[in-house]
């Protein structure tokens, strides 16, 4: 695994800060940051492991007899008749009161359907859907966040008008229809994705709105990754299955976990430093919206789909006993074959799909913690140092129940998961993109974001190679809309056979990194974007519009 090139020991932080403030020399440490100088207040102390892990409800489609009112305009969507919606959803975006811990206060957050995290979409390939997003936020949102919204399914292969283009944000009292065809890119089942998430993508306010609660999972299943560990279909992978649905948690073994790092004021209300251009860094970790919850597991296999919700935090996730697990998927995709690992690194918006077999633990092991060992002291990115296991922040406590009778575990982790799709289209062009910072402004190729015109126009049905690089002291998780990409080389080295060699939709670049990617442009035309998914950078113009034309 790669490590960033910069870094200082966190243990020196207080000493350096004190010295700097005492002498007036504010920059004696190259990692000195605005966050440290400001000496931001820390969140109130909270007692860990007081509350069980919670899960949102499934998103429920409207009854088959109930149309959307007003009716959907087919002319507003590409290939609407071809992918006629089988399910209609109505999602209300509204404010909600959320408390991340019993010792904290309720905070007013934004939400999809009064739920944080947002309701989980359980989608299936071949079953198109319309999701109507209705904006019921108040006209004035006090503090961080904005009343305008636009939902983006991260890693979705969707038409431009349904993709959540940042400039398509809409105001309270209005709605927007999203047509999700739920079709394989290019019709190729090897392009299947599984762990997607949806979040707000409002231009200039994505980081604030997502941090304010507008995020949830969008899971996709097909005949292979069918979501049924008892599936009689011989082609089915039979991975641990059963996504919890609200309070229905028992005998569910496919567990989505979204990680955030909020900060709270002395009264316990969630706050955000919207002024820090490096990025926002909190001092608490939440899992599915709760500070340090616990989760009871059986002695069997579990699938965990872990998402870094950002805005700027990077993770290196371990279990406290350093136990091994099977890394089966990165971002939205299953890998060609499982990789045995004992940690995963996550940049903002990346996902890790892992299978943990608790039956392999000794009977004396009754508790295991999920911990973050990536040291990060500001929004610029991780320092590259690994926090010792003993002092690493604990995110989630896994309480391992005693073995109960002859509990069967029909799930498995096959040795072959999802072969990589062929790169069979010759690349007809090579483009270069340099993510940089000039005069304190985020830029790509020296250009500032301008969504009114594309910086690249690509032809539908073709493939291209893009070379993406970065410099300076900031990490930039580069995210692509519409299509996934394949990393051909990273700093001129091939990445085949590793997690990075799988399909990617977001890839963290550290200072001086340069990657070559291969990407096809299929099925849909229109406006799309590529941007840094440190959403604070994204909101301050580190974004490129590119268009697909017929």
């Amino acid at each position, binding site marked *: 695994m790669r490590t960033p090139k910069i870094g200082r020991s966190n243990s020196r932080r207080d000493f350096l800060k004190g010295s700097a403030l005492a002498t007036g020399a*504010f920059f004696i440490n190259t990692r000195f940051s605005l966050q440290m100088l400001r000496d931001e207040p820390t969140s109130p102390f909270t007692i860990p492991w007081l509350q069980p892990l919670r899960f949102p409800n499934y998103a429920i489609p409207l009854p088959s007899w109930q149309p959307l009112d007003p009716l959907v305009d087919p002319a507003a969507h590409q290939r609407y008749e071809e992918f006629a919606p089988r399910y209609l959803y109505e999602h209300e975006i509204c404010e909600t009161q959320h408390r991340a811990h019993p010792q904290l206060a309720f905070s007013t957050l934004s939400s999809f359907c009064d739920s944080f995290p947002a309701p989980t979409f359980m989608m299936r390939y071949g079953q198109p859907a319309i999701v109507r997003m209705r904006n019921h936020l108040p006209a004035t*949102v*006090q*503090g961080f966040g904005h009343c305008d919204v636009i939902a983006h399914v991260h890693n979705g292969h969707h038409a431009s008008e349904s993709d959540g283009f940042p400039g398509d944000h809409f105001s309270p009292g209005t709605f927007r229809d999203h047509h999700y065809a739920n079709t394989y890119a290019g019709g190729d089942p090897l392009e299947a994705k599984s762990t997607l998430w949806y979040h707000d993508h409002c231009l200039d306010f994505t980081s604030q709105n997502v941090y304010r609660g507008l995020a949830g999972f969008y899971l996709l299943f097909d005949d292979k990754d069918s979501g049924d560990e008892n599936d009689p279909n011989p082609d089915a992978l039979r991975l641990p299955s059963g996504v919890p649905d609200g309070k229905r948690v028992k005998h569910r073994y496919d567990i989505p976990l979204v990680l955030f790092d909020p900060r709270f004021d002395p009264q316990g209300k969630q706050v955000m430093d919207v002024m820090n251009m490096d990025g926002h860094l909190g001092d608490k970790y939440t899992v599915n919206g709760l500070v340090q919850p616990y989760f009871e597991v059986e002695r069997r296999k579990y699938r965990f789909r872990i998402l870094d919700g950002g805005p700027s935090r990077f993770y290196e996730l371990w279990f406290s006993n350093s136990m091994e697990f099977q890394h089966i998927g990165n971002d939205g995709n299953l890998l060609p074959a499982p990789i045995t690992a004992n940690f995963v690194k996550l940049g903002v918006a990346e996902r890790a799909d892992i299978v943990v077999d608790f039956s392999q633990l000794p009977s004396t092991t009754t508790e295991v913690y999920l911990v973050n060992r990536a040291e990060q002291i500001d929004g610029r990115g991780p320092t590259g140092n690994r926090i010792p296991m003993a002092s690493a922040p604990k995110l989630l406590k896994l309480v391992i129940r005693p073995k109960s009778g002859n509990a069967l575990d029909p799930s498995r982790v096959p040795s072959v998961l999802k072969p990589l799709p062929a790169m069979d289209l010759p690349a007809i062009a090579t483009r270069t993109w340099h993510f940089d910072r000039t005069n304190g402004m985020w830029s790509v190729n020296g250009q500032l974001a301008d969504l009114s015109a594309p910086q690249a126009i690509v032809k539908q049905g073709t493939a291209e190679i893009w070379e993406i690089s970065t410099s300076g002291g900031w990490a930039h998780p580069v995210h692509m809309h519409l299509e996934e990409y394949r990393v051909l080389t990273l700093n001129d080295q091939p990445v085949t056979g590793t997690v990075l060699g799988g399909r990617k939709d977001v890839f963290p670049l550290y200072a001086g990194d340069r990657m070559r990617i291969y990407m096809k442009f299929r099925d849909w035309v229109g406006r799309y974007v590529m941007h840094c998914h440190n959403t604070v950078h994204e909101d301050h113009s580190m974004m490129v519009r590119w268009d697909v034309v017929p």
Partner: protein
Amino acid sequence: MTSDNAMPHDRPQETARRAALLGLLFPAAALLSGCASRAASARAERPEIRGGPGAFAMNADGTRSFRDHELVDQDGKRVRFQTDLVEGRVFAATFMYVKCNGICRDLVSRMREAHALLAPVMGDPVQFYSFSLAEDSPEDMKRYMAEHGLDRLRGWRMLSGPSEAIRDIRWAFGFFEPNEELDRNIGKHTGMARFGNHRTDKWSACPALGAPEGIARGVIGVLPREDCARIEWYARQHRQNGRPIPGWRAS
């Protein structure tokens, strides 16, 4: 930063005591005394600002307080940063200086175009603040504004003050370079614009060297909804003239 920490709002009781004394000595000044007491009371509600440069504090009503630096504008008028420029205001702030040979000319040009797009709300409620990075004198700032045609534009002020105060403001707005040399090099100063609505604590930023429409959009992003009606009407007129304002919205 000791001088920064000794701002009046940190000593509200002293201000109130003086105001009360003034009322006793000069009955005619009783009304003024009352006003001063109310002002002192309002300031008393501001929390103490802890931390180094760039720090701010959150008020009980969900707004925020910065250090109340004393500054001077192009007319020589003395103003307080928090009291006179931030509280209750909607504004766009940029950083520049009179003798800049770098990005300032371009920055001012684009801000001027954004000002034109925002004409219906400029001055009321939107203010444009250009903070001098070089302790420019009021005379220099006034001359600069005249040379660039800014003096005729409603709601645009240039402001100067001690470099430490301007740095505190700049850092408070998030425009900070982790490299000391770069941070102090005003020849490579920030080209970002900070947009703020103090009352709703709505903040955003965008490059002031980008498209003027983007700057206008940034301002509109923090505007109260009621003011957007004016922009909408104005944008409609503009659209008829072939110059729409893309992406306008209310906060």
